[in-house]
């Protein structure tokens, strides 16, 4: 069954949370999405919260700091800002902002309360990180939002439910008072139509399984699932007929040897010498020398066909989630800044911005 198209579905969204299993490229997708959102002349903030400095590498800029910093100026007058949210700085800023505790914050630091809050008491970290993202999303200048959109490169799918729902825990812990109010406001933003949690995956079993699990978990705790972004999609390199033959193990070595001969390749094994014309070697000897190469190519073809088949299965599983499906191509040479713009364009074309 076809998945709905995302066209325009996220126009109201102010906070885009991007998660995915490790290795699926969620940071790349978050960066491309932020560029796509900024392309129309908008101001966008891209946040990372895991201290990995993945964004700095992608954009080829010096390490990101807690202070927001402009890292790209997409065409059309857009602005892309970025920051690495760090719990300790977030806590001190929070104390200063809400309680005007410039010096008292130092007292807390001296007795170890700040260290306790940001490292020993494990969950507070997430409270502080989500709190900072909330603040940036809600910040206003003269009545208008400071950022048109905020993109969060969030923790991986395995942790996303707990990470986003941590303020619900806080509401459970603090029955009254300022902390409860703050946590309550964060939860209402996260549960509103202004937030979308996008799930990044690749067409492999485990990431797709985790995507399913995360979608179910987010649904259960009432957080809005946005698009499913299928990253690193590779086009089949074999024709449907060849795929079918490969799947059945019916690729003929003789035929491939003939093809290789026609291509002028010789087979000094599949090893070093493979390549130049057969020269003086007899035709049948040349053909048998090509067999190992043909066999190796067929084995790779079968592997490829198996992969294509498994990918189709996974695509069907993702379609059954009934969320907008967006696809991004695999880039053979890896992701650099130019590639990010290309991916941003693909996201824009598929209605993500």
């Amino acid at each position: 069954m076809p998945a709905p198209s995302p066209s325009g579905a996220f126009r109201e969204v102010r906070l885009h949370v991007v998660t995915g299993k490790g290795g699926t490229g969620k940071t790349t997708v978050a960066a491309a999405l932020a560029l796509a959102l900024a392309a129309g002349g908008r101001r966008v903030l891209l946040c990372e919260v895991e201290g990995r400095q993945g964004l700095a590498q992608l954009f080829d800029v010096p390490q990101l700091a807690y202070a927001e910093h402009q890292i790209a100026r997409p065409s059309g007058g857009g602005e892309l800002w970025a920051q690495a949210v760090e719990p300790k700085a977030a806590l001190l800023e929070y104390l200063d902002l809400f309680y005007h505790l410039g010096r008292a914050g130092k007292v807390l630091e001296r007795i170890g309360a700040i260290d306790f809050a940001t490292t020993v008491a494990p969950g507070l970290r997430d409270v502080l990180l989500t709190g900072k993202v909330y603040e940036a999303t809600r910040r206003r200048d003269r009545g208008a939002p400071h950022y048109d959109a905020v993109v969060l490169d969030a923790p991986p799918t395995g942790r996303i439910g707990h990470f986003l729902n941590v303020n619900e825990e806080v509401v459970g812990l603090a029955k009254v008072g300022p902390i409860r109010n703050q946590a309550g406001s964060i939860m209402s933003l996260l549960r509103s139509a202004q937030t979308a949690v996008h799930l990044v995956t690749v067409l492999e079993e485990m990431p797709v399984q985790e995507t399913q699990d995360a979608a179910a978990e987010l649904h259960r705790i009432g957080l809005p699932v946005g698009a499913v972004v299928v990253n690193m999609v590779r086009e089949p390199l074999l024709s449907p007929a060849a795929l079918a033959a490969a799947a059945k193990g019916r690729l003929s070595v003789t035929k491939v040897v003939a093809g290789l001969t026609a291509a002028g390749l010789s087979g000094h094994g599949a090893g070093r010498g493979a390549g130049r014309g057969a020269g003086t070697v007899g035709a049948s000897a040349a053909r048998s020398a090509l067999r190992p190469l043909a066999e190796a190519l067929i084995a790779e073809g079968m592997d490829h066909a198996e992969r294509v088949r498994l990918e189709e299965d996974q695509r069907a599983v993702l379609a059954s989630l009934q969320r907008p499906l967006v696809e991004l191509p695999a880039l053979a040479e890896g992701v650099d800044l130019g590639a990010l713009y290309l991916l941003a364009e693909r996201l824009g074309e598929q209605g993500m911005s």
Partner: protein
Amino acid sequence: MTAAARRLDIDALLADPATRVLVCCGSGGVGKTTTSAALALRAAEHHGRHVVVLTIDPARRLAQSMGLAELDNTPRPVDGIQPVTAQGGGRLDAMMLDMKRTFDEVILAHASPEKAEQIFANPFYQAMSTSFAGTQEYMAMEKLGQLRAAADAAPSRSGSAAEDGSWDLIIVDTPPSRSALDFLDAPQRLGSFLDGRLIRLLSAPAKAGGRAYLKVVSVAVGSAAGVMTKVLGAQILRDLQTFVAALDTVFGSFRERAERTYDLLQQKGTAFLVVAAPELDALREASYFVERLGTERMPLAGLVLNRAHLSRAEGLSAERAAAAAEDLEDVEGGAGERSAERELTASLLRVHADRMRRHRREQALTSRFTGAHPDVPLVEVGALAGDVHDLDGLREIGRSLADEPRG
């Protein structure tokens, strides 16, 4: 195999009776859990080891392949082990970590039943033991400490290992995050926390009988208490105080346990394996792990590079394969059969060209790693089309890890 790197001899590592603990760490999505399981199976089947593997959050079908139907925090024997060594006798137990239960057990072991009840009922404890990031890392190491203690205390190698805990090899998977190395910081963190003034401040009301605690602490701490009351509110501070007071007795033993586990990790019988994939991010993380382990003087055995694109026809370069495919596509005419042969061969050459491009990119990334860490031995494991669902799949990976030809 990258020329500069030494090969990691997995079989020698698994066969060596001096290897008692193997910790697999690395970023998410690199097949760490599968690697842990494959190593455990190979150690049991090929080297006669009595192995227990502790997995964290395994994929469902991988868990099923080892007969782990549920997360119950107890090592269970894995069925279907086929020892291949003459000495035989290898065994494999597997378990999944239940972090809340592990945390509860620690509390029960160190607090009186009444106090334990108090702690379990506290909302801070409930939040911390179930959902907060970081707890998993602490608890994985706690469980490792428990397994090791059980293994050391076990009298013999007779009977089921699961019953008497007589494992001679413990393999641990670590949680998939950068904080996977957080356990290295646990003793120090707990130490500085326990010796700090915060804990004294927080536990003061309980010790002073719940009243006028400001009088028993210094002025600086007093003003800090004021600040905390203002920030947190009275109710949350009270809950936190009750929590800390209740945990007071347990905390000391917590630190001791964390320190013991830390020492255990530095000992000779422990080996760390960093697991990665030949991708930019994963290798960057691997570098971080390698350097961090070095700083902490933790024994690193080597790097396992999963999901590598290897080829049996490495002599045919991507360029030459692509050019040959183009040549074939340019040829006109010939009988239908001839043209079908050319078409098929051309597409297979394109598949090969694609694989070789990946291979070359991966080699370049890998040699950057080996350039920075020339002393770290490594082994490459080829990418599989699908996931592992059974013991045979794990055996195949084990062969690949040991660099044994496909069987």
